[in-house]
């Protein structure tokens, strides 16, 4: 049971930060940015490059966050702000093009070989019957702290209130004198930095590789849509739900039903399970699980 929780948490942390940023930006600009997962891939490579050239890991990740945030902000100002004038559908297609450009650029620059971090191997820590490594504890810890900070920012500060106002009714928010452009820029930077952080931490175990972004695309979007696009903390809940479903499906022993030998669902169905949940959610709760007073999609 404990192992189940640990596995769910680890998988959820892989997705949570990136889904959070995606949903947060969606709330303000109202288009799903497909390139968002590629910022995570970009961040992973920047961290690798810094770490390989001798920068301590934590500093390398911090630099990578700043660089990725700057890239996100730059793309927002130069590309997406203009595309948005033509409508969200155009902006989404544009973001697909940007995603491919980022991948092509990284492939040209870093090559197609995966870059594995050269980290010391630590013995896993036993918590009950569950095994986790120190790196994973830091990873989950960082994610949780960041999510708490973000929730506090969103619900207990003026900036947070302004962000929520802008997300739920841009016209009214602008009429009340909110600096919409300033907030959007801030959020774009922050979402990029968080994606860079998520990608970097992910790369500590999987290595920085060119498909890192594409591999995240479907689960991250599923989590964000499940939570209701535009609802950042909903995206985190979506990530948790997807992780829990995937973990449950792979670990339930159906052997008892047919008597005798352990019998598990083939792992090829692992992602099908989470998309079944997504499909059911879209059928019955099309505006996300946390659809309350505001329609978000």
């Amino acid at each position, binding site marked *: 049971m404990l192992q189940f929780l640990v596995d769910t948490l680890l998988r959820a942390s892989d997705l949570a930060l990136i889904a959070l940023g995606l949903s947060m930006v969606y709330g303000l600009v109202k288009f799903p940015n497909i390139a968002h997962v590629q910022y995570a891939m970009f961040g992973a490579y920047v961290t690798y490059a810094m770490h390989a050239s001798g920068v301590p890991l934590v500093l390398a990740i911090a630099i990578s966050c700043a660089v990725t945030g700057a890239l996100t902000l730059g793309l927002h100002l130069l590309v997406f702000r203009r595309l948005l004038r033509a409508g969200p559908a155009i902006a989404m297609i544009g973001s697909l093009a940007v995603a491919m450009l980022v991948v092509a650029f990284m492939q040209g620059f870093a090559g197609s070989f995966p870059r594995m971090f050269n980290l010391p191997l630590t013995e*896993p820590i036993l918590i009950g019957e569950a095994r986790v490594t120190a790196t994973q504890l830091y990873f989950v810890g960082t994610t949780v702290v960041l999510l708490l900070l973000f929730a506090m920012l969103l619900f207990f500060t003026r900036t947070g209130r302004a962000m929520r106002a802008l997300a739920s009714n841009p016209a009214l928010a602008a009429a009340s004198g909110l600096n919409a452009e300033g907030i959007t820029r801030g959020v774009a930077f922050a979402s990029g930095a968080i994606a860079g952080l998520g990608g970097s931490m992910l790369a500590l*175990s999987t290595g920085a590789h060119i498909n890192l972004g594409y591999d995240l695309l479907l689960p991250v979007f599923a989590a964000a849509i499940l939570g209701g696009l535009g609802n950042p903390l909903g995206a985190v809940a979506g990530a948790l739900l997807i992780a829990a479903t995937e973990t449950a499906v792979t670990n339930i022993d159906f052997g008892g039903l047919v008597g005798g030998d352990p019998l598990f669902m083939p792992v090829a169905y692992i992602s099908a399970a989470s998309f079944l949940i997504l499909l059911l959610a879209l059928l019955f709760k099309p505006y996300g699980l946390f659809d309350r007073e505001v329609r978000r999609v």
Partner: protein
Amino acid sequence: MTFKMHSFYAATALLGTLSVTPVVQAQETVNMGAVLSLTGANATVGEDVRRAVMLAVDKVNADGGVLGKKFGVIVEDSGGNPTTALNAARKLASVDKVPVVIGEYSSGITLPMAQYLVKEGVGHINVASTSTKVRELGASSFNLIGLENLGNQFSAADTWALGYRKVAMIAPNNAYGQGVAHGFKQEFEKLGGKVVTELLYTAGQSTYRRELQQVSRSAPDAYIYTAYGQESAVLNREAYELGLRKSPWYAILLSMSLSDTPANIANGQLGMEVGNVYGDAGKAYQAAFNAKYKEGTKTSYTGYAYDAVLMTAAAMNKAKSTDTDKVQAALKDLGKGGYVGVTGPIVFDAERQRIDPPYAKLKYDGKVVPR
């Protein structure tokens, strides 16, 4: 009509003379072709094989060349892409008019490329692809390397000999992985063993913890796996973290499976692979490779490429011609027995497939070493 046909023949003959004559005059070198993955995901393999090919060219020329002329191999890059490989093969066959082309690396590229060459009647020698479909390529295709069915027999016998009876099988959920998982299971069960779990994992996930834990529940004697470098690095790290390495791990194609895994995690794994070098000729080849490139071979495929080039040169000399049909006939003749390459004796069966191709038992001890 007759007149027209005559003029057609005359024109063709004239064209033929025009195009052939300068080539014959300029042909100071006798060439064969190679299509290798010099760029792209398998660039390491491609470059390694290219070095072996160049070493073979040096060797042939040091021994007097071919038909009294200088010998060369025209190397083209496949970019790890079937279309590029096909274009390269087309160029080699129709512009350079080489009698024999070797290559590529991955089966998905070798098969369409070789089908084209066979259709054109040009000789093809497979030096690295292990799909069983290679056997079905047809009349002008030769194969030097052990295909998957033989590989599965070898790894099943090897793991059985190591004392494993109840094993878990881990492979990617694609044509290659399913082929290996299915083939290994068949061979292993013939010997009396049992595959208790079969895990066909989805490529490109950030974690395989859930899958690995599912497998571990069946408490196997050993884990038999095959995986691509980067995914394998995640699998191996997580298997280590979850304590699954307390049971032995055996990799089918060990150096591919461990190429991106840190040494401290990889240590102690056993495995197999196609054989690389054999006997004194093999040792001499490795020494020459080391001397020329200041480092050893990185993959097991170089020996096959080296043999393919030397054998083609020998066939040209034997046929006293560079005509592809005559060279192919000479290759078949050489393959009747008695030809020994750096990968061991090369004998072809009726379908031009090597009989008893070599395999190696390996382990990881700081690097991949024989066991």
